[in-house]
């Protein structure tokens, strides 16, 4: 890895750049308590709620695997695929407290054969892609047992 490069978020404001406690950043309606990721800031989208006060909140770091798959071929642009391309898994993880499912890449080296619905997954920070100066960081899921 290129330790000399600056680590910057691949997208601003979607997650906390704290390697010790990385979290997705959502919003929560202060009236009905529902969550939104990515952040909703305009007004609550629960049609039975007229809440307009949406507070930024970190989402649970752990959840249960709802389903999973992988990319055996490099996705098209604007994805920046490594060359040579290594297949990677994608996970849909159910957060118990937030009652929602959130997608993310699975960290490199975890094959789909090592995954099963219901296993516990944990959010980590990892590299999405690099250029000459920067390492662009993104959230990924990792099996807790691994």
């Amino acid at each position: 890895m290129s330790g000399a490069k600056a680590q910057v978020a691949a997208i601003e404001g979607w997650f906390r750049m704290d390697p010790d406690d990385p979290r997705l950043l959502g919003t929560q309606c202060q009236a009905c308590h529902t969550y939104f990721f990515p952040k909703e800031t305009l007004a609550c989208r629960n049609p039975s709620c007229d809440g307009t006060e949406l507070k930024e909140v970190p989402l649970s770091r752990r959840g249960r695997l709802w389903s999973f798959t992988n990319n055996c071929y490099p996705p098209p642009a604007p994805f920046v695929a490594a060359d040579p391309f290594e297949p990677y898994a994608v996970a849909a993880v159910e957060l118990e407290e937030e009652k929602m499912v959130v997608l993310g890449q699975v960290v490199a080296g975890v094959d789909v054969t090592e995954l099963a619905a219901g296993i516990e997954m944990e959010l980590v920070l990892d590299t999405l892609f690099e250029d000459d100066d920067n390492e662009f960081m993104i959230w990924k899921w990792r099996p807790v047992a691994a």
Partner: protein
Amino acid sequence: MANEVAVLGVGMHPWGKWGRNFVEYGVKAARDALRDAGLEWQDIPFIVGGQTIRNGYPGYVAGATFAQALGWSGAQVASTYGACASGTQAINTARAHILAGLCEVALVVGADAAPKGFFAPAGGARSDDPDWLRFRLLGATNPVYFGLYARRRMELYGATELDFAKVKVKNSMHGSANPNARYKKTYTVDDVLQSPMVSDPLRLLQICATSDGGAALVLSSLEFAKKHTSRPITIAAVSTVTPRYPNTVIEMPNFATDSAVGVGVPDTPFKDSIAKGAYEQAGLGPEDLDLAEVYDLSSALELDWYENIGLCKPGEAERLLNDGATTLGGRVPVNPSGGLGCFGEAVPAQAIAQVCELAWQLRGDASGRQVEGAKVGLTVNQGLFGHGSSVIVKR
């Protein structure tokens, strides 16, 4: 009866990778539909085009583009977009005009010229567009979402790769006799299971390709139809419902589902509500169906639709398939046209093509793939960003 319109004419340009402009496919389909209806283009007071976003400005103004190519006639024009449900939006726009008494007859056209390979988002960096961001941040192609659904069936219901392969085998057999299908080869289970893995557990032969093609319908009031045909086919329902909050199934192009913290999950999940909306309009139920055309973007997704349109209970789709109920000759054949597995997807044309197939089936004109005695058929489909799409056709 009150809300029915007639299907007077149907037409298609065969699906393929022809490398020509989408307008050519749409115009061919439109002329065929007009001929089938026994009408001239200049008899048509209203034309609706399903938009395509991958063919520049003419694609955004598809209705006018087709009208100009057919020859400016002074017709009223509309263009509709609803992603994969654009065709149904076009059908519904025409239906509404006819039912409102604004016109007696209308032409609906959808056509696409698709790029090679994976669908990628429209060009340009757009950090506020989830359809751009899902590729950028996750590499979440369409097959990734299909893979998640397929794996969920395996984990939840014990579905197998063999079950998914059998859907493809069935549809390839159905489509082998369809002159408008792009892929007419009949595949075996081994062919499917030996094709390269794309998004586990889905392999290349189980994932819908992108295609060129065009489809068109001439719709009219029932009164108008009486004067023009002795065997009217009617559209009894068009459902274009959105989800109800919270939608707790992950959908393209989203990063997350809605949260169910603020309010409970609705009784009818989104994909179930699409056909339900159509059944309610038509006063019919799944037991009335003789056939269905469902959106098999992947072979596994076809099994989800069996349950979503009420052909069986959740978890029973594999049994329905393996019993042969959804094969030609079975209780309720699904995708007798060959489905997207044999066509590939020509986005704004596809939902219109589903209705063309039902019309041919109900007239008894589906040579080589006929569902004998078919009287009621349903199409179902879903466009990303929350577009339900279901049409019930009957005779």
